[in-house]
């Protein structure tokens, strides 16, 4: 291949001064060299890429998107929990409210019942006293009537005697009683 041996690598493509003859791109002498090393390089790069780099980067990317998905899911879960907690709180609050209302109502009805009982007792006492008083009044009235009858008989006997009549007690009493009935 090397027809001349000078200080430069001289071939069909380089003149004695080390300058390219024509385009080095088109120098057929050099092409096998470039092609050989290109193929070697591409094979090396392919193995680096397909065996080491791409699976590793792919795994990292997949792992990252997995992590992000997991985090999002966890956040969603926490949000649900928060909503649940809020609902529980609301429920507790409502329970407490209804409990309070119940207690208030119970207390009210108890007081009402006590009040009713007291009122009934007071009413009963009052009516008992009223009945007693009425009885006493009736007794007084009866005794007063009896006294009036006695007094009327006595007065009648005295009047009959004063008028000069002879009054037997029996007929006077009967007459007074009949008169008083009338």
């Amino acid at each position, binding site marked *: *291949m*090397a027809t001349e041996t000078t*200080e*430069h*690598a001289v*071939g069909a*493509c*380089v003149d*004695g*001064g*080390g*300058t*390219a003859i024509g*385009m*080095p*791109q*088109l*120098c057929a*002498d*050099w*092409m*096998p*060299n*470039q*092609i*050989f*090393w*290109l*193929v*070697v*390089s*591409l094979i*090396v*790069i*392919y193995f*680096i*890429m*397909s065996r*080491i*780099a*791409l699976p*590793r*980067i*792919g*795994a*990292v*990317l997949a*792992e*990252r998107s997995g*992590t992000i998905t997991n985090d999002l899911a966890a956040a969603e879960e926490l949000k649900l929990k928060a909503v649940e907690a809020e609902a529980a709180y609301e429920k507790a609050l409502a329970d407490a409210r209804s409990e309070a209302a119940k207690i208030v109502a119970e207390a009210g009805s108890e007081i009402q019942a006590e009040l009713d009982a007291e009122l009934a007792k007071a009413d009963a006492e009052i009516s008992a006293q009223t009945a007693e008083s009425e009885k006493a009044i009736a007794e007084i009235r009866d005794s007063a009537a009896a006294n009036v009858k006695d007094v009327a008989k006595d007065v009648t006997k005295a009047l009959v005697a004063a008028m000069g009549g002879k009054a037997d007690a029996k007929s006077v009493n009967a007459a007074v009683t009949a008169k008083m009935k009338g």
Partner: protein
Amino acid sequence: MATEEHSEGGLVFHPLDQFIVKPLFGDGPVHWYTPTNVTLWMGLAILAIIAIFVLGSRGRATIPTRMQSIGELIYGFIYKMVEDVTGKDGVKYFPYIMTLFVFILFANYLALLPMSYSATSMIAVTAVMGFGVFIAVTVLGFVLNGPAFLGLFWMKDAPAILRPIIAVIEVISYFVRPVSHSIRLAGNIMAGHAVIKVFAGFAALTIVSPVAILGITAIYGLEVLVAGIQAYVFTILTCVYLKDALHPAH
């Protein structure tokens, strides 16, 4: 550079000398197995890839380090591209496409270092990749679809008279694909580097040197874009061709 001495004071333009393949050790002839500057810069690309994708992701951190997130960013970018263009069933070819992309990307960017060698500017390099993609996609298309793969060239929506004509055009454009695919990349990278070298040659003239240096800076900025964009373009076209193999029906 003894021979350049004679042109002292004048302008010396050898913009293509940067693409000369030299043996790394000694001055012997370049055999197919000789370690050359091509070998060196492809090797450096491999080391850079190892640094970012293997060492960078060493920690397998859920919260990534800076290096790891670069690797993840490139991974996600290409993965999404493959998935979007070729569909779910194209994802199993993702490692191959990723290999092409990182090789081109790192070779392009390493070539932007001063004194470096741009492996992706060599037509032999890009043609191997371009034709490799072409052959792989064609074989895959016939293996997966059988003769139905030829339906790629037969437009069912077109009027019946136009179908044969369209088929001829489609076949021609199909076979031009690997050529355009590889020349696009090599041409872009080579042109950019050659233009930088031409501006650098002008920088030897005192009067125009400020303009020349500004020009180098501007072209360099452009080349930074081109390096990324061409890697992207090569990869997305690979995905598009792969999609044709997977789903030949229009």
